[in-house]
């Protein structure tokens, strides 16, 4: 009797999980289904769930209507070059703040933590004016260069990871007379690969998804990223839902792939810092 009751309860529970999971997945499914319908079908009430005719041609058409190839290339360029910079900055500075014994490191760690709390809104205007003086506005530099010197969150993440490594490693190499650069490059860095992967994934995602930066600094459609380009397209062609959903799918797909292949690094990011990524 008690046996059947627990079975019923866990079956109901499983059903609840399936329903909620479906609710969360439904918008994705709807996005893809819309992207494969004709415009007439989309503007019809009541909506039909499946396309009458699967309009695969929406994708090539969206590519010619919206300069998606250019936007895609710009997004990849900015995200990739920024990620290289983030890896460089976070791995070197994080190393200095954890495994090198020098008196300034505690004070410097506090500056890292404090700047993580600063709202971007406060720095936004002077930074824009600075980049304008440098004639960087309109190009990619304001979106890439800061990653090479100013990534407090990732510096902190790398520092936390370095602290999990045995201290003796660097000390022993030092006693053996190895140079600091060699210790960093050949002894320590190879051990941080999982943390570097986490940093790379989160940095890439951040720049891939970023909207405000491109909105402030990019002025010519030729330089737009996917985020900025799609917003601009929607603003002028607010009814082209099939193309917009096709473009949104293209925009989201790399993120899903990154998640599928790097899933364990996502959880690692949460675990290392104890905070969300």
């Amino acid at each position, binding site marked *: 009797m008690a046996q059947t009751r627990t079975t019923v309860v866990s079956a109901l529970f499983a059903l609840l999980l399936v329903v909620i999971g479906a609710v969360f997945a439904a918008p994705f499914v709807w996005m893809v289904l819309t992207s494969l319908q004709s415009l007439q079908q989309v503007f019809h009430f009541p909506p039909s769930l499946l396309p009458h005719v699967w309009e695969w041609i929406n994708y090539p058409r969206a590519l010619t209507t919206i300069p998606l190839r250019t936007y895609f290339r710009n997004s990849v360029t900015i995200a990739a070059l920024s990620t290289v910079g983030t890896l460089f900055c976070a791995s070197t500075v994080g190393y200095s703040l954890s495994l090198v014994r020098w008196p300034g490191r505690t004070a410097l760690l506090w500056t890292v933590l404090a700047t993580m709390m600063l709202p971007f809104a406060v720095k*936004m205007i002077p930074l824009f004016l600075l980049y304008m003086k440098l004639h960087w506005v309109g190009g990619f530099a304001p979106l890439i260069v800061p990653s*090479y010197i100013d990534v*407090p969150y990732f510096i902190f993440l790398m520092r936390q990871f370095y602290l999990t490594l045995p201290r003796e490693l660097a000390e022993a190499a030092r006693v053996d007379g190895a140079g600091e650069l060699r210790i960093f490059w050949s002894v320590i860095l190879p051990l941080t690969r999982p943390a570097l992967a986490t940093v790379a994934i989160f940095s890439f995602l951040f720049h891939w998804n970023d909207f405000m930066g491109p909105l402030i600094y990019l002025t010519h459609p030729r330089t737009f990223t996917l985020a900025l380009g799609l917003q601009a397209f929607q603003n002028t062609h607010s009814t082209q839902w099939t193309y917009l959903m096709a473009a949104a799918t293209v925009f989201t797909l790399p993120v899903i792939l990154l998640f599928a292949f790097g899933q364990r690094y996502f959880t690692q990011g949460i675990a290392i810092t104890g905070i969300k*990524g």
Partner: protein
Amino acid sequence: MRRRTAMSRRQWLWGLAFAAPWLIGLVVLELYPMVMSAYLSLTQYHVFTAPRWIGLRNYRQLFADPLFWLSLRNTLFMVLVGIPLNLATAFGLANLLNARLRGVAVFRTAVYLPTLMPAVAGTLLWMWLLNPVYGLINWLLSTLGLHGPGWFSSPIWSKPALIVMGVWGVGAPAIIFLAALQGVPEVLYEAARIDGAGRRRRLWHITLPLVSPATLFLVITGIIGTFQLFTSAYVVTGGTGGQDNSLLFTVVYLYQLAFTELRMGYASALAWILFMVILAVSVLTFRATRRLVYYEGG
């Protein structure tokens, strides 16, 4: 002995060398903009002429600016309604995700994926889902005999629409709650069960106190993030603030002032007020919850 000092001096230099990128970044991209922004907030500055010192006039003008107050009210609505709703949903989901059940990993992925979606793509998707005439949501409501609202095109429903969209993205806080739930020792529940504590009392006296540090963390990061709400509102309205300015949030207004009206001094003053509000609300939250948050061994 001499060897030691030589070595520590070398460590000094290497420490500085490895920290050099951040030292530059800290000065050029953090400290300088902070100081500069404070200075600009005391000037009148339209980019093409030199900044003119006007003391506190920008601040006085802001306090008399109805759009400033409106943007603050709009933002506070999102903080006071959106965050509690988000966190309650996230906590509920985390309890479900915590189930020891086959296939629960698929469910976790389904809940987490929306948080990865680019904000612009997600907002466009929800504009389509919430389309007043052809959208999926209003169709679902109509099958229940309800007449769905205009959502983003209605001054009353535009903020609730953003909140609904936000609830879809609660995967990240849900995962953090999940980690906190998994840190609660099972023996506590067993002891409570033996003592005859029911489900509700176990939730109230064990689960909630033990996840309270995670809750506080999520409330604080939620406050900091929500006060800077921008992208979704900008995409929905094309940067205008929407119907009756119902989606004019503080940072949206700040963007308009700085980059469409080029009133850099006035906008800087608004930025500093926003910063102070965020700081004050965060500190107050810390203070008010000090007795409610339970730190193990602390």
